[in-house]
């Protein structure tokens, strides 16, 4: 495994926000790597996305909770009352739609065997609003203790940038920053991502895979996919 890693934003999100196997994959990676660098672009992008994701989801849940408060009068919820909430108070356009719907599906199963209090649902939603703000990396000493921030100036590499196939958002800049760190640090350097679609696979009629292109044009030694592939 390379000594130096440069992280894409998704790895940081996986380590801090997510609560499933993506999280285990990402936090496990940070814990086993010798040095994990966060570039200036990734640091900025992570700060923005981290806040945006937590705020969006917490806001949606609290809005939904307020809708339940004002629209549901029954003190106990039957399976059909739970279905009514799913149909009428959960818009499929919400980012939180799928996991809130999954919560109600689980609740519906419970409702067949025991009474579900409306107040319990309100309380669960209140809890979820705060679970969204939890930092999963805290358990391992916090993100600050797991990564190093690259603060030295990074020059432009127009020749490299011109030849890169990756073009989405800030991804080309992240590649250039990772190339610079690889150039400066010498030991085998890896770029870790949770976005194989942008960083690894072949896209459309591009002549080579993104991974092959990045390795050919930069001083990076490997591009690692740290997203969960579904295997348990």
């Amino acid at each position, binding site marked *: 495994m390379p000594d130096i890693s440069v992280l894409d934003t998704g790895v940081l999100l996986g380590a801090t*926000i997510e609560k*499933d196997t993506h999280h285990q994959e990402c936090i496990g990676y940070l814990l086993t790597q010798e040095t994990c660098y966060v570039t200036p672009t990734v640091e900025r992008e992570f700060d923005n996305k981290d806040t945006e994701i937590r705020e969006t989801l917490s806001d949606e849940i609290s809005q939904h909770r307020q809708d339940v408060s004002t629209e549901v009068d029954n003190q106990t919820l039957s399976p059909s009352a739970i279905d009514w909430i799913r149909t009428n108070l959960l818009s499929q356009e919400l980012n939180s739609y799928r996991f809130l719907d999954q919560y109600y599906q689980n609740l519906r199963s419970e409702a067949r065997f025991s009474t579900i209090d409306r107040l319990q649902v309100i309380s669960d939603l209140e809890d979820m609003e*705060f*679970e969204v703000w939890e930092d999963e990396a805290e358990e391992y000493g916090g993100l600050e203790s797991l990564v190093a921030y690259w603060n030295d100036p990074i020059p432009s590499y127009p020749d490299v940038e011109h030849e890169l196939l990756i073009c989405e958002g800030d991804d080309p800049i992240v590649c250039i920053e990772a190339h610079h760190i690889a150039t400066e640090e010498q030991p085998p350097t890896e770029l870790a991502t949770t976005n194989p679609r942008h960083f690894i696979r072949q896209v459309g009629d591009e002549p080579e895979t993104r991974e092959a292109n990045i390795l050919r044009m930069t001083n990076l030694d490997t591009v690692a996919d740290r997203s969960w592939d579904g295997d348990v």
Partner: protein
Amino acid sequence: MDRASDGNKIIYETEFNKLCYLAYKGLEEEGYAGEVSLPMRWYQFGMELWGQPEAYGVIYQGDDRGTQVTRQTLSDRAFDVREELQSAIYKVARHLAGEYKDTYGTDKIVDDSYEDYAPTEFVLKYHEFRSVFDNLEEGQSSLMSFLNDDSPEDHISTIRPHMEQLVEWYPRSKYDEAYTLFRRWDSVTRQLAKNGNLDAMEALASDFWEMFSRVELRIHHNIDVPSEDQADWILERPRHKDAFEETLKQYREIALNGRDDTDHIDRVSASYSEAVRSIANESD
């Protein structure tokens, strides 16, 4: 008031503001509202005079209980209004002096102002919510559960019905500017209640109401305030909202640090993770 109480009555700023508003409402009922021209705005705990106290013939002086209001000697010209209005003013003043001459403290007059003149049901409900803290300080028996630090469940069960009332009565179309902050404040307050952190909850409630007064109440509920002052208040809205957002962040952190673990999202983690990725990719 001074005369009615034989000089025994000390009037404080809160009471003075309420008396002025009650007097205004009395004159309004008599049909003189258009002639009174008394600039007032709803700020925090009720209507208050807008402008320098000297313009109203009074002086404010701080003492250990609050801001005392004393009257200045005014020339006869200050009362140079038509006879019919003058008698209406005397009538209203005598009525209020009789009503409140033996009332000490501001609770009764504040409660009366809210019950009769709260501009929206939400404002009235917030006044009731605040009284939970006042009652707590007085150690009233109905709130003894608050005093038991080992029972955070009691804290949320005492607070939640008030929060639910506020949610129910929030007039979103009227107070739209502060709606998101209201929702976030509601969320953090409930968690602080679950944690049993009453001091933080009370301090945050105070900050929330100050922001709400600046962003919504004084703009929607005022009388005879010059339009340029109202325009300034509207321009100041983003600054007050941003400042409260920062305050909320600090209290959210306090609430996060004090909360017991819950695992509702863990049970739906795969679809939760998809939501996280979806928002992350949308903003690329």
